[in-house]
């Protein structure tokens, strides 16, 4: 019997939570099996389904996920053992000796932590970045006419590695800090690492946020079922009606940076930012909606980012869990290291309150954005994207003390609605420029596109044939725009702390059902699927 299928899985079909196989085959079967299982066994069913999902997508690489969980589990126990040892050793010691002894113990724990983090991040680096790094070394070698070339190995990456690796590191670190107790229950850790809705595109969760919840899952409740399904539907609208519809246009312009004038490039850059938001936040709706059905509350990844008044606020509201991870595990650890603290203290005395901490903050910020860029992909345009935001946020901090007096002099009311709108638009434009480089096929291509916006700012290609050349038509743009407006209105309401879903819940059954039917038919009719459309992979699954 041919068993090679055991290694292969079924390929990429299911990585999109809006793929037919996932929505109409995998998920329903999972829910039914889960629902009919006795309560005590539900968590194991959930675990089995998660591993099954991973296997279907990545085949034998599911072993990598399991090994990661084993390693995380062992490091947790190891740290725990060292901590216990420290406790007993320190007990009864006089205070003077205590400190020195504690340092000795901590050094050991730190070494274990470093080893654990190194293994996981190291594997990620090797699998995801060796091609990029070695490729760069080879270009340098060839620039110096050196006859040697590094051998570039090809690795297959397990799906979601960028996401679950960060979860692994956060677990080990949290155990080290005593924030959580080391888990003695391996299946619980495995479930924390592999819960299937979040494995492909996050959100990146901390052990304290989800592990207990996942382990205590119970009966599917009617309310969570309906709420979850509604949220999936809403995400589906974002993804299928807007994101996928704009895909041909974006692809065309970014693939041919020389063929279009500035006006079209601006259009494409805006469309790409819209597409990215709709795709990623739509997928998040599906992920969180699915988790909601199981009664699990995952952390939100978006908080209406396009209402941000500054770039740094934007990044607190876009891909929130990634930003939080960087803040918790890079930004503050860097700034609160001994050397940085001394730097802050001395700089504050010379430079004052604002610029003093900026030295250490700037260095930490640099680390964060370097990592953020690289995390998104092994390519110079991603690093450029990271550095672009680093410069924006740092310079925002640098000029902040200058802006205030100017505003005062010009009698600009910074909390007036007009100024807020100005800030929001300014932030959005800066973000769109960043995403342009993010999407471009390399920095050179990005520069070319960006340059053309200024050197060739005409709208002459906006003739009758333009849209046809871009692979869309007037109606595509109209329906995308209408849907964006719908999402925008809902966002405004959410921004004002009005929960649509809870408001709807209070309405009559007929009214609620009508809304749902309208939404479903809207997706069925206006979705970009079936004939004439090519399914688009979820954008964040590649990272």
């Amino acid at each position: 019997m041919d068993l090679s299928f055991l290694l292969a899985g079924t390929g990429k079909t299911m990585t999109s939570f809006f793929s037919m196989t996932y929505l109409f085959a995998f998920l329903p079967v999972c829910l039914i099996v889960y629902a009919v299982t006795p309560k005590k066994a539900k968590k194991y069913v959930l675990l089995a389904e998660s591993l099954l999902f991973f296997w279907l997508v990545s085949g034998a690489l599911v072993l990598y996920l399991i090994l990661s969980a084993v390693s995380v589990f062992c490091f947790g126990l190891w740290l725990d053992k060292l901590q216990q040892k420290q406790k007993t050793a320190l007990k009864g010691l006089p205070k003077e000796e205590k400190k020195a002894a504690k340092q000795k113990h901590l050094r050991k724990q730190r070494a274990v932590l470093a080893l654990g983090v190194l293994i996981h991040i190291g594997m990620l680096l090797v699998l995801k970045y060796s091609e990029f790094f070695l490729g760069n070394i080879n270009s340098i070698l060839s620039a110096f006419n050196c006859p040697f070339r590094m051998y570039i190995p090809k690795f297959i990456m397990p799906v979601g590695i960028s996401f679950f690796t960060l979860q692994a590191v956060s677990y080990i670190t949290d155990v080290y800090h005593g924030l959580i107790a080391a888990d003695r229950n391996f299946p619980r850790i495995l479930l924390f690492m592999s819960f299937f809705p979040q494995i492909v595109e996050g959100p990146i969760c901390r052990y304290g946020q989800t592990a207990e919840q996942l382990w205590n899952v119970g009966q599917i409740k009617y309310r969570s079922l309906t709420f979850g399904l509604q949220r999936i539907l809403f995400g589906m609208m974002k993804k299928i009606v807007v994101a996928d519809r704009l895909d041909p246009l974006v692809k065309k312009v970014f693939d041919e940076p020389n063929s279009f004038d500035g006006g079209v490039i601006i259009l494409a850059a805006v469309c790409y930012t819209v597409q990215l938001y709709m795709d990623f936040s739509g997928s998040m709706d599906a992920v969180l909606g699915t988790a909601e059905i199981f009664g699990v509350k995952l952390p939100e990844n978006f908080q209406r980012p396009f209402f941000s008044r500054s770039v740094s606020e934007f990044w607190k509201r876009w891909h929130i869990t990634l930003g939080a991870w960087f803040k918790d595990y890079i930004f503050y650890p860097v700034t609160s290291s001994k050397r940085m603290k001394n730097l802050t203290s001395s700089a504050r005395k010379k430079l004052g309150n604002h610029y003093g901490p900026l030295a250490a903050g700037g260095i930490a910020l640099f680390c964060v954005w370097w990592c953020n860029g690289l995390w998104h992909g092994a390519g110079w345009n991603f690093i450029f994207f990271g550095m672009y935001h680093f410069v924006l946020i740092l310079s925002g901090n640098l000029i902040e003390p200058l802006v205030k007096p100017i505003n005062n002099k010009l009698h600009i009311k910074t909390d007036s609605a007009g100024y807020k709108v100005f800030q929001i638009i300014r932030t959005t434009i800066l973000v769109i420029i960043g995403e342009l480089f993010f999407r471009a096929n390399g920095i050179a291509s990005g520069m070319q596109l960006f340059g053309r916006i200024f050197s060739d700012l005409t709208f002459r290609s906006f003739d009758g044939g333009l849209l046809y050349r871009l692979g869309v038509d007037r109606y595509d743009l109209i329906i995308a725009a209408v849907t964006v407006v719908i999402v925008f209105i809902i966002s405004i309401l959410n921004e004002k702390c009005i929960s649509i879903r809870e408001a709807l819940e209070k309405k009559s059954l007929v009214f609620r059902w009508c809304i749902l039917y309208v939404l479903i038919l809207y997706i069925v009719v206006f979705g970009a699927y079936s004939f004439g459309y090519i399914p688009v992979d979820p954008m964040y699954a590649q990272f």
Partner: protein
Amino acid sequence: MERLIEILEDIQPDVDYKNCTDLIDGHFLNSLDIISLIAELEDEYDITIPAIEIIPDNFNSAERIMKMIERLQEED
């Protein structure tokens, strides 16, 4: 407590530290202020504040900050 409020006021004046209970969540202190604050606190109270303690819950009010300091002093 007096001393703590002095430090806070030195870093970021315009805030009523005695009564404010959402220093972080209300965006009264930004991440740069936190960096300064931690450096100052460590000097002043002879403690180490590990990065993991830097969570809104520990910094949302002067009282919460004091609680954290006392806890860290005890642990040492």
